[in-house]
Every structure is written in C-alpha cells, then in structure tokens.
C-alpha cells in the first residue's frame, strides 16, 4: 500500500475536492464532537442477527469509517490503462468531478465515454458516447427486469449480457446500418458501465457520510478498533508465537508476521491441538479477556451504527443512482425490521420527489448530524424519528453542517481516551515497542509526525476503493489519504496498513471475528455466503479451497461459539464492571475464537492478510 500522506496525488485531489464541495458549508468545531466513551450503544439495532453489509449475499461493497470498498472484482482489461492501479482513481475522480453538474446518468455516460476509448479504438468519440448513452439507458431500463427474473446469485451473468446485447444491437442498428461492434466488446462496455455505476453508488454513500457527526463517530470508533486490534494481536502473539510454534519459515518470531506457505489440513489440525494448553491459559488471562472484550465492543458499536446509517444512506442513494425497481427489490432484504423499513420508505420517497443530487445528499447529511451519544436510553424509533425530522427540514435557507475534524485530532482524542485506563494505556506501549523494534518504522514515524503539518480535508476526497484483476493479479486501488493511494509511485512506508506495525497477523483478526460471528448464528446461511464471497477473491491468490476450509474443516474442529457473547450488555459487564462470571464466559469464548482464527491463519499462510480487512463498519 502506498505511503499515505506524502503522495503527489494529494494536491490534485484537493483541487477536485474544492470543486466537489463548492457549496457553502458551516464547520462544526471539534469541541462539539462528543468523546466516544460517551457512546452507549442503542439496544435494538441488531435486527434478526443480520449484518447490514451482508443482507442478502449481493452486497457490492463494504463501508468502513473512512472509505468504502467495492467487493466485486472487475476485469482491468476493460480500461485503457496499462497501469491498472490507476483505474479506480481515474473513475472515482471522474465521478467526483461530474456528479454535481451532470447527475447520476449524465455522470455515468460521461465517465463511460472517457474510459471506453480502448474498447472501440476504431470508432469516433461521438459514436462511443452514443454507445455509452444507449447502454446506460438500457441498464437503467432493464436492470429491474433481469433481476426480477431470478435470484441474482443464481442468475447467469451471461443471460443478463444477452438481454442487454440484443436490445443494444437492435437500438444501434436502428440508428446506423454500419453498427458492427463485436459482442465481446459490448459485454466489456456493460462491465465498464456497471463498474462506474457501482463506484458512483458507493461514492454517494461515502459523500453523504463524510464530515457528519455520525461519520466522525465512525472514524473515531474505526481508529479505536485499529488500535485495539494492534493491542490484542501484540498481546496474543506474545503467547502464541507462530514463529516459535510452527517455525520461522511460517512466521517471524519477533513480529506477528505470517510469511510462509499454508499448512496442510492435517498439519494445521495437529498444531492447533498442540497449542491447547496455551489457549487454556489465554482464556484465563485477565488482560487478554479485557483486550478481546474491547474488540467485541468495537464490533458491536460499529455494527449498530451501520444499521442506523443504512436507513438514510441506502434508500436515498437508490433514489439517486439506481433505477425505479431497485428499492422494491432490495428494501425487504436490507430492512427486516418493520420500523427501519418504514423510515427507509419515507426516505426513499422524499429523495425521489426531491430528485436533485445535492439536495438529497445535504438532507441525508443533516440527518447524520445527530449526536448518537445522546441516545443511550432511547430506543431505535426515537433515533430514527429525530433523524427523519432533520432529513425532512426545508434546507432552502440553511447551511449544511459538516466537520473539518481532522484525522490528527481524532487520534489525539484517542490518546486521551487510552490514557484514562492503565490497561488500555498499555496498548500505546505495544505500538511504541513495535515502532522502536524496526529502524525504518521508527524513522518513518518520526518523520510523519514532524513533517506533515498541513490539514488534509478528507471531506472532498473520494475514498472509494475497488479491486481489479490484471494479468492474474488482484490489484487494489483507493483514494484516501489515510490509507494510501495505490498508484504508480513506489511505496515509501516501511509497513502497509497501520495494523502491520505489529505484524500482518493483525489484518486477519477483524475478518475472522466477523466470520466467527456469522458462524455463531444458528442459521449458517450468511456464514456460507460470506465464505463464498471471500473464496471468490482468494482464488486470485492461489487459494481454491477456502470454502472447504471455512465450512467443512471448521465444522470438524467442533468450535463452540456462543452468539450471546457478541451482545453488548454481556461485553460491557466484563469490560466495565469486571463481572467475574461474564469475564470467564468471554474467556471461554476467546479460546474458541482463537481456535477459529488461528486455524484459518494456519491454513491460509501468508494469504491470511488478504482477507477483507478494512476496519470500520460493514464487512465482506
């Protein structure tokens, strides 16, 4: 991953951002941002145990605190770039530049025109534009029809292509007898438009959230989660040092870095069985239990907030970006709770009536300005009602609030937060030790602290990430100053994601936790779906049996994950009140979770770091 803050891309990005946010905004002062420790999670957000990001297996993206990651893997050959890493950036930049002027369809057509040149090298620009216009119209018109005809998962993509192609060819031939674009090119054009539309959809979500109070809260929690993950991984690796247990060809001894090839099923099971005593000890270790409880608590908070946010950002985005049938096809899958669905319907209707992109986005932003930390004793309906009242307000004479709260101040607030509790404070010490251990990391941290004094206004920075396949490789692209922009500039940072300061093992903790959560449910449908999603991605990394590993082999291990442990009330009793019985239960759960996580790590080897590992809300 590229260096985050000194990339030469930042300046042009900020220029684009200025265009995108030309509307006059009033800033929230950072002192208006409530400390995260005041957040008492609302109690009714968990609906039917479903993760919002995994509502029905067709989720295209995941949303985290600071960026949105598109899940579907696209073929980089459809773009006119040798440098596939730049594709995401180019398309997102195109969207950010145009959406406020051209609206959704206009933006898709224009970006398609700009990107489709290599598909139709012989055709004049006007013709390419016509192709893009025709195909975008068709996709908007036919999407509902195609999706209605069968479950998306079951439905053959090719059938969808055929319907588009038939209509497209018919339309084009009516316009010109000379139309002779080959079918495979038209298929690629469909993929290209689908990619642009997906990025636009996710960009819209991100744009709605960016800079709002809830957005900041998510950022705070997201960073806290990262620090907790680092602390927990560092602590666990002290006891379960896979470099010592499995060997230095598999993992480093001085750092939680998995570097080797995966183990075979029998070997992995033996290693796991041999470490049973260590796991038993960890299950009784007070600090390990506390650190694990923090991880569970972060997970809960982000999970609950994602539920609230989705009621506003999903239907409004559907109204702006998708076709007429999208809401009806998806509302039930997203909103299984009747209250949430009711509000989602209101939001959709309002957004549809308003029509204007900027107006809808601003109304959603206003709804997302509520302070969730004030709602500890109210229920979901109160929260949604207050948000909806904000959403409905006439905005003709009011500024939209958004915050310029910087990443630095979020991190500094977190330092204060960690400083308040001696056990939590030790996580800062774990990070310090990790920084001091490696000379290059030490040098980097010293430099980054002293040199980058400029504010990075993240509000206007497109931060949608996606993956493409290029020459058999999976290539990620992101626009986010905190995460790093994967471009053609060499990586300067001596570590990738922040978590890797303690070792790449930290990267698989969150996905393992989400999988463990889904596995703990009685109904394994969502678990299997998530496994399948991941398996599709891991295929590009040489792992073709992840489904077997995560379903059959895990079942053989007879891992007992008690889903009740995931509930906030349970966790808080241990975390805040040191409730002995509850802490013991969490300890037992910790052992089982570690068995799950470590087994997956042993079976994936170094690929474990490639599990979808963005921190924040929504996974997979």
């Amino acid at each position: 991953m590229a260096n985050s803050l000194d990339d030469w891309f930042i300046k042009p990005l900020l220029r684009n951002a200025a265009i995108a946010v030309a509307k006059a905004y009033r800033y929230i002062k950072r002192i208006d941002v409530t400390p995260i420790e005041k957040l008492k999670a609302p109690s009714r957000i968990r609906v039917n145990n479903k993760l919002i990001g995994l509502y029905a297996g067709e989720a295209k993206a995941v949303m985290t605190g600071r960026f949105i990651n598109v899940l579907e893997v696209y073929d980089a050959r459809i773009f006119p770039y040798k440098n596939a890493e730049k594709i995401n950036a180019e398309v997102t930049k195109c969207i950010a530049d145009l959406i406020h002027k051209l609206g959704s369809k206009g933006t898709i057509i224009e970006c398609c025109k700009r990107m489709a040149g290599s598909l139709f090298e012989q055709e004049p620009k006007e013709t390419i534009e016509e192709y893009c216009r025709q195909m975008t119209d068709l996709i908007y018109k036919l999407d509902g029809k195609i999706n209605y005809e069968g479950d998306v998962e079951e439905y053959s993509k090719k059938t969808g292509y055929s319907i588009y192609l038939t209509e497209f060819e018919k339309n084009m031939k009516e316009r010109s007898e000379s139309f002779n674009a080959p079918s495979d090119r038209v298929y690629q054009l469909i993929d290209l438009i689908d990619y642009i539309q997906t990025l636009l959809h996710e960009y819209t979500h991100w744009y709605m959230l960016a800079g709002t109070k809830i957005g900041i809260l998510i950022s705070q929690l997201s960073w806290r989660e990262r620090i907790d993950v680092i602390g927990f991984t560092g602590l666990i690796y002290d006891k379960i040092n896979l470099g010592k247990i499995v060997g230095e060809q598999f993992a480093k001894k001085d750092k939680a870095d998995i570097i080797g090839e995966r183990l075979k099923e029998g070997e992995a099971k033996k290693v796991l069985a041999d470490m049973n005593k260590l796991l038993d000890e960890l299950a009784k270790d007070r600090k390990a239990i506390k650190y694990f409880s923090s991880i569970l608590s972060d997970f809960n908070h982000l999970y609950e907030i994602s539920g609230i946010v989705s009621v506003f950002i999903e239907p409004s985005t559907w109204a702006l970006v998708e076709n007429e049938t999208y809401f009806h096809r998806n509302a039930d899958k997203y909103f299984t709770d009747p209250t949430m669905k009711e509000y989602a319907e209101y939001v959709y209707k309002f957004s549809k009536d308003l029509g204007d992109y900027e107006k809808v986005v601003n109304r959603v932003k206003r709804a997302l300005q509520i302070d969730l930390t004030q709602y500890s004793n109210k229920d979901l309906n109160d929260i949604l009602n207050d948000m909806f009242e904000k959403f409905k307000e006439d905005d003709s004479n009011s500024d939209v609030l958004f915050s310029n709260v910087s990443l630095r101040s979020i991190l500094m607030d977190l330092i204060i937060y960690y400083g308040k509790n001696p056990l939590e404070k030790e996580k800062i010490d774990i990070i310090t030790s990790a920084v001091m251990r490696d000379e290059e990391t030490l040098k980097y941290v010293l430099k980054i602290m002293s040199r980058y004094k400029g504010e990075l206004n993240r509000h206007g920075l497109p931060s949608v990430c996606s993956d493409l396949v290029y020459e058999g490789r999976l290539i990620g692209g992101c626009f986010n100053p905190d995460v790093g922009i994967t471009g053609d500039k060499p990586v300067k940072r001596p570590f990738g994601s922040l978590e890797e300061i303690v070792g790449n093992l930290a990267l698989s903790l969150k996905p393992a936790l989400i999988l463990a959560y889904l596995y703990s449910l009685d109904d394994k449908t969502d678990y299997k779906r998530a496994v399948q999603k991941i398996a599709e991605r891991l295929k590009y990394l040489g792992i073709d049996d992840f489904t077997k590993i995560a379903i059959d082999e895990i079942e053989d291990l007879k891992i007992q994950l008690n889903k009740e442990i995931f509930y906030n009330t349970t966790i808080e009793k241990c975390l805040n009140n040191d409730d002995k019985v509850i802490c013991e239960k969490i300890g037992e759960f910790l052992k089982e979770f570690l068995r799950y996580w470590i087994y997956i790590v042993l079976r994936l080897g170094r690929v474990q770091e490639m599990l979808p590992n963005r921190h924040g809300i929504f996974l997979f």
Partner: protein
Amino acid sequence: MYDAIVVLGGGELSEGRINEAIRLYNQGIAKYLIIVGGKDDYEKMYKKALRETKNINNIYFDGNSSSTIDNAYYAKKIIRKLNVRSILIVTSKFHVKRAVKSFELFLGNEYKIDAIGVEDNPDTFTLLKEKYLDEILYLYDYLKGKDDEEIKAFFDTIRGPLNKIIKRAYELGLMEDLGID
C-alpha cells in the same frame, strides 16, 4: 513590567534559570516570582530564591512537574489564584519556543506571555530532542479548546512513548538523518 516571573525547573539547567529569575525579580520587574519544577527544585531553586531575594512573601513554588506541560499546568493554578494577567517565563534559550507554546495552550489569549532565554550548555541529546519537539509543536493546536485535565492527560500518555522513541532514534543516529539537527 509583568505581574509575575515564572521560572521553569530543568534538572541540571535549573541553576542558571533561577539565577536569571532572581536577578530580574530583584530588579523589580514583576510582583511575583513563581517557581515550577520537580521535587529536586525545592532546594535548588526555591530555597535559593528565598535566600537571595528580599520580598520572599511573593515567591511561590510548585514541585509536581516532570515536563514543560506540567510546568504550565501547575503554574496556571498559582497564576489563577494570584489573579496574574501577564507573565515573563524564564527558561533556557533552547527551550523558549516550547515553553511559550505550552503556556499559551493552558492560558489562552487573555494573558500576556513573554519569555527570556538563558544561555546554557545542554548536552547534545537534549538539544536534538528539543529541536524535534519544536518540530511537532503544531500538534498543540489540535488540543485548543480542551480542558486542562484532558490536555495534561494527553501529554501524560504520550510523554513516555515519545521519549522512548526519540531516545532510540538518537541511539541509532537517526535524528541526524531526519534533517532536524
């Protein structure tokens, strides 16, 4: 004229600082002499001031500090009590920038804050460390608006780790590589 001279303890450098503060206090440029430092500074600074000045009733001492931020935090308590509105900070010359920034952080814009730097001979590590800390003074701006306890909590949390990192970087010769020496 100032309402108070505030002299900061500084380990081995305390002596030079208190000498200058006593000289200025005896000249009558301030009503009060406030000494903030560590426990060791009771003998080195406070007792010395009591011995070498006439108006000893207006000399105040706090020995709870272990950092510049602590100096500002504890000095503020005395400053508030005495209703002081203008101060002259006396510290080492190399330390002036950070000392002023620290006091500004706690006292805000309503106070007149000046400083005078004493020429002394800190060791190389102290100088390099100070130069680095000056480089990251911009971080203080992010703490504006926070209450005193939170500001102190931030620095209490970060001081140990930061000192360790700087010390390690010094041992590895990285401070020079950073181009801040």
